[in-house]
């Protein structure tokens, strides 16, 4: 089997190579973040510092590590989207294999092999980039050759320890396994028969599992708060709450499938232009794929608007303003922005996959004189129709989730209450804007999908 996979690999097209590289890039990013988190476990200092507390403060580090681990989610989601796209385009090779006697399971293994291989290469690259970064940091901070304001660490030998290599290896294994799994999972959506490859009828309706995720997430959060009380030293409750919140929001976003469908349906009914009609119907036909593609964007919007409450009390003088807090907030926002960009990239891949399914009908529309620009608007409106409900739900949930903070403080000005809502609105708008903007990035794919060559039957 591996032999066959190798043989097929040599015959890969340029586009397939590009997809392999994209997968590797996602895996590299995920590994880099995991390595950074692993590095933090080796830190021993427990000092407050205005700029570096996220690393030096023993209380803060678990939070930082959680954030880094969470940031791998958009990267891995990106890998999964690309491997879905790859599964859809591996078609012809797989059909040939089935004709040659391979079982459906074997063709899926092939997908897992290809994705796993890209993920392994990416993971190795990510680790290879992290190690020199770690060495450089050690050199700069520990040898004090830099004019940077370095944390003063009395008594400690080094402020930046070496990253524990066993954990790096674990990260590589983890990311590679993630790649293999996503390759296997992506293969489920394509059925390769000897004669052709058909896309399996996809599940497009909300599932009970989504609600289960919501309930499980809420339960975890609740349990987490209790654990925090019981275990003040290791603060394991924080992790439980973090994980619970993620599961909760993921479930919520997946449950937005029906919101997306309702929005698309009403947009389709009222559509006056061909572009809106087409995009609304396309979203309506597959709201679940959009919900999935948008889930990480939704998560980011949720966290972004939830963070507004914490900020408001600092900004409006309830809690004391400190450099330390400002640094934290800026870091959180930067992380969220990064997550949004990465997850938006997964959206482009989703649209590319969709275009692949539509290349004949789009090519024939283009042939009959529909400008590519009009078809481009179809992509943009799809993103708008799908992203708007998801971001609204996530933004509103974010504001609502942390509103209990407002009961524990008595701000001096009413603006303190307005700010979180303003911020939630801005973050929601950013989420929608990101989705719409990246849909423009799918235009080169559109141009290729609508080329007359796609009208030739193979």
């Amino acid at each position, binding site marked *: 089997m591996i032999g066959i996979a190798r043989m097929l690999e040599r015959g890969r097209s340029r586009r397939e190579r590009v997809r392999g590289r994209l997968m590797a890039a996602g895996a590299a990013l995920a590994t880099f973040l995991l390595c950074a988190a692993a590095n933090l476990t080796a830190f021993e200092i427990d000092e407050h510092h205005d700029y570096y507390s996220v690393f030096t403060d023993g209380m803060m580090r678990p939070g930082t590590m959680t954030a880094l681990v969470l940031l791998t989610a958009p990267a891995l989601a990106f890998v999964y989207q690309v491997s879905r796209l790859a599964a859809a385009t591996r078609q012809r090779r797989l059909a040939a294999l089935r004709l040659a006697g391979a079982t459906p399971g074997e063709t899926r293994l092939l997908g897992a092999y290809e994705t796993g291989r890209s993920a392994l290469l990416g993971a190795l690259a990510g680790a290879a980039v992290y190690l020199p970064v770690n060495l450089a940091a050690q050199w700069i901070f520990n040898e004090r050759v830099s004019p940077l304001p370095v944390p003063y660490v009395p008594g400690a030998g080094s402020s930046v320890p070496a990253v524990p290599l066993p954990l790096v290896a674990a990260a590589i294994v983890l990311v590679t396994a993630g790649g293999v799994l996503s390759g296997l999972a992506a293969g489920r959506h394509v059925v390769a028969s000897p004669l052709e490859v058909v896309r399996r009828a996809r599940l497009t309706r909300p599932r009970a599992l989504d609600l289960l995720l919501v309930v499980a997430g809420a339960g975890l959060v609740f349990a987490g708060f209790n654990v925090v009380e019981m275990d003040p030293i290791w603060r394991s409750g924080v992790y439980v709450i973090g994980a619970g919140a993620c599961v909760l929001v993921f479930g919520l976003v997946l449950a937005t499938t029906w919101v997306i469908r309702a929005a698309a349906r009403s947009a389709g009914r009222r559509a006056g232009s061909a*572009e809106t*009609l087409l995009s609304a119907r396309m979203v309506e036909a597959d709201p679940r794929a959009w919900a999935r593609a948008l889930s990480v964007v939704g998560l980011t919007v949720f966290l972004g608007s939830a963070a507004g409450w914490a900020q408001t009390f600092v900004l409006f003088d309830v809690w004391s303003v400190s450099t330390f807090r400002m640094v934290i907030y800026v870091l959180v926002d930067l992380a969220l922005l990064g997550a949004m960009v990465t997850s938006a990239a997964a959206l482009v891949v989703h649209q590319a996959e969709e275009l692949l399914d539509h290349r004949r009908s789009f090519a024939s529309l283009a042939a*009959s*004189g529909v400008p590519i620009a009009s078809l481009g608007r179809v992509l943009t409106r799809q993103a708008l129709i799908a992203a708007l409900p998801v971001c609204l739900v996530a933004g509103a949930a974010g504001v609502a989730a942390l509103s209990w903070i407002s009961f524990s403080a008595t701000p001096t000005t009413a603006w303190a209450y307005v700010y979180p809502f303003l911020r939630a609105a801005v973050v929601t708008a950013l989420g929608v804007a990101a989705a719409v903007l990246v849909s423009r990035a799918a235009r080169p794919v559109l141009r290729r999908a609508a080329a007359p060559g796609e009208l030739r039957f193979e």
Partner: protein
Amino acid sequence: MLEARGVHKAFGPTRALRGLTVEIGEGEIVAVTGPSGSGKSTLLHCLAGILRPETGEIRFDGRRIDSLGDAARTTVRRENFGVVFQFGQLVPELSALENVALPLMFNRHGREESMLTARSWLERLGVEDCAGLRPGELSGGQAQRVAVARALVTGPRVVFADEPTGALDSLAGERVMDELTGTARESRTTLVIVTHDNRVAAYADREIVLRDGTVASAVTA
């Protein structure tokens, strides 16, 4: 009305058209036949302004369209041409009715008006019962008749059809060809049909036989 003069078109090393010259009159129904790979589809795409030949000229109404830019050629196609392909041209998520209304709506006609016109075309082609169905729920013959309706709905002056019955059995194919040629004759629409089926070619007034990218013979009724 539509003419190609000394047209050459190559895809890499493959010379699909080699100095080909044809002329098609207003309201004419022309069949383009020839063996597989003789350049029929390529000729159709060049005539329809979808592909640009390397040398030679394509004229529509005496105006050169091969030298026009992409946007201008798109406009020419939208205002004057309709296309029918072998299969898969309908948007799977739209109903048959919406598929037919789509070109009108892309031409900035109102939704209500477009749907009304589309419905009348479905009736004309005998598939009004399918109006609410998605392409996946149509038979091949019904889908092709919906595709014909979509090609004709904007009142084009030329309709280009590439193997319009290629995926159908002979009775369904006959139905599609009857409707396509019947409505084309009624509205004096020029029709260019690429086919390798003689029975389809027999619907045309004239046949252009291609061989190795040039015209082997032109047979007129």
